[in-house]
């Protein structure tokens, strides 16, 4: 059992408790797993209106250097040089074996500055890794004084535009700065639900004010980590530590798309030799969507077998998809079984249950597209 006293809390801790959240330990923080609405309704609400998530546990930092894009490209396979100011890229911190240390968002602020958002459980390691590897070339400044809110869902743009009119027309995967009721914010049109939405970085001191202002808007509900997980699973998005980790390469993770043509041609990222080979010939294993054909959910670590009872992989994330209205899962299987339509079996409570390999996502993405 985790000692509650050793847990960190976000600047919204008092608000969560006042809202009736059930708090649980997550990545060293006491975080709201659900509010009185409950995971199922919180999930559905986010897909039909707007949900407000506290993701202040995530790691934010600024990286500065004369050739900051080239410097960070030595640690990630994304094309950062191509980013124009305000553009955001999803990329991967890699180790020398081509394994994934973390997944992260990189925003180009200006020619010498990048803004990074990394996973809570990895942030200390990530930031130490980046600072050490890029020593003398770029300087990393952690933003432990900043909170992060996510406003997600089809009405998020309408809600946020009341405070920041420019928010409505921002393209997906871009960031900007502005003011929210006089509070300086860093705003990104991005998220982890498959819906349109924003991530809003603000000072710890103003977090509660901004959160309360958003929650006072019609159709905005606070949403906990439980629904955050079911939303991202339906959207086919990876959870670091479950679906991807240092034992998965980008190819294993079905994330080859994060490596653009220039980086494929030039290499120059950790594990490039191995990864570029895998892009050509495939990896032995691959992350896939797995749809149980019955009603029973199959949870993480459920064994996946072929029709003859041979072990071919394991589920990495699985549960019930409230919008899909049925069980959903993803996992990593031997590449010979990775083709959508392949019939497999899942061993749940000792019984072999039929399932099918499917394309991700389970619920189509509805990111903002400029008219």
């Amino acid at each position, binding site marked *: 059992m985790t000692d509650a006293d050793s847990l960190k809390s976000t600047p919204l801790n008092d608000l969560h408790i006042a809202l009736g959240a059930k708090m649980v330990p997550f990545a060293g923080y006491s975080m709201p*797993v*659900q509010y009185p609405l*409950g*995971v*199922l*309704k919180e*999930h559905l609400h986010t897909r039909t209106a707007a949900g407000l998530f506290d993701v202040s546990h995530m790691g934010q930092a600024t990286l500065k250097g004369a050739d900051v894009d080239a410097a960070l490209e030595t640690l990630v396979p994304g094309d950062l040089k191509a980013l124009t100011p305000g553009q955001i890229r999803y990329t991967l911190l890699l180790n020398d074996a081509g394994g994934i240390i973390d997944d992260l968002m990189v925003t180009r602020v200006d020619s010498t500055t990048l803004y990074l958002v990394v996973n809570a459980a990895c942030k200390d390691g990530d930031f130490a890794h980046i600072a050490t590897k890029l020593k003398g070339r770029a300087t990393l400044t952690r933003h432990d004084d900043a909170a992060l809110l996510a406003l997600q869902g089809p009405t998020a743009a309408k809600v946020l535009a009341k405070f920041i009119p420019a928010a409505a027309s921002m393209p997906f995967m871009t960031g900007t700065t502005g003011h929210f009721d006089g509070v300086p914010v860093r705003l990104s049109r991005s998220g982890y639900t498959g819906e349109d939405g924003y991530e809003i970085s603000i000072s710890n001191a103003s977090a509660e004010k901004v959160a309360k202002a958003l929650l006072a808007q019609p159709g905005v509900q606070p949403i906990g980590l*439980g*629904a955050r*997980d*079911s939303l991202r699973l339906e959207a086919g998005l990876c959870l670091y530590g479950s679906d991807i980790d240092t034992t998965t390469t980008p190819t294993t993770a079905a994330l080859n798309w994060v490596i653009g043509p220039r980086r494929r041609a030039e290499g120059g990222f950790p594990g490039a030799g191995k990864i570029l080979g895998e892009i050509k010939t495939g990896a032995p294993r691959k992350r896939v969507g797995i749809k149980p054909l019955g*009603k*029973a*959910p199959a*949870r993480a670590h459920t064994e996946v077998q072929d029709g003859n009872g041979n072990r071919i992989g394991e589920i990495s994330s699985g*549960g*019930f998809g*409230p919008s899909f209205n049925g*069980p959903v899962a993803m996992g990593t299987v031997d590449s010979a079984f990775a083709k959508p339509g392949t019939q497999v079996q899942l061993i749940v*409570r000792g019984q072999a249950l039929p399932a099918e390999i499917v394309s991700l996502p389970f619920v189509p993405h509805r990111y903002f597209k400029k008219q």
Partner: protein
Amino acid sequence: MSETRFTKDHEWIKIDGKVGTVGITQFAQSQLGDIVFVEVPPAGKAVKAGGEAAVVESVKAASEVYSPVTGTVKEGNNALPDAPETVNKDPEGAGWFFKIDLANPSELDGLMDKAAYDKYVAELS
């Protein structure tokens, strides 16, 4: 004459002669949250006191339902798999999981009555 007894794992069993009806308590359903999947045991299945008898899953997690007593399943509530939310709505009524023929009614003496269970739950929260 019927009476209801409770386990520390938050199952209830309502006794009617040598047959018990088993479900999970109001407290258990409130802790689980929205129930999305239920598996009930087939008639004829032999279960032991404290042994796994049924499954209940919320969006987040799967939980076992343990049999409060030893016996043979007389009937599973076959309405539940198609309407698992019944367990949230009426856990101690229509949301029952299975009926069991008691092998050893004296096992009931080891279970809590309503007053004892209410006190037990109050101490948990």
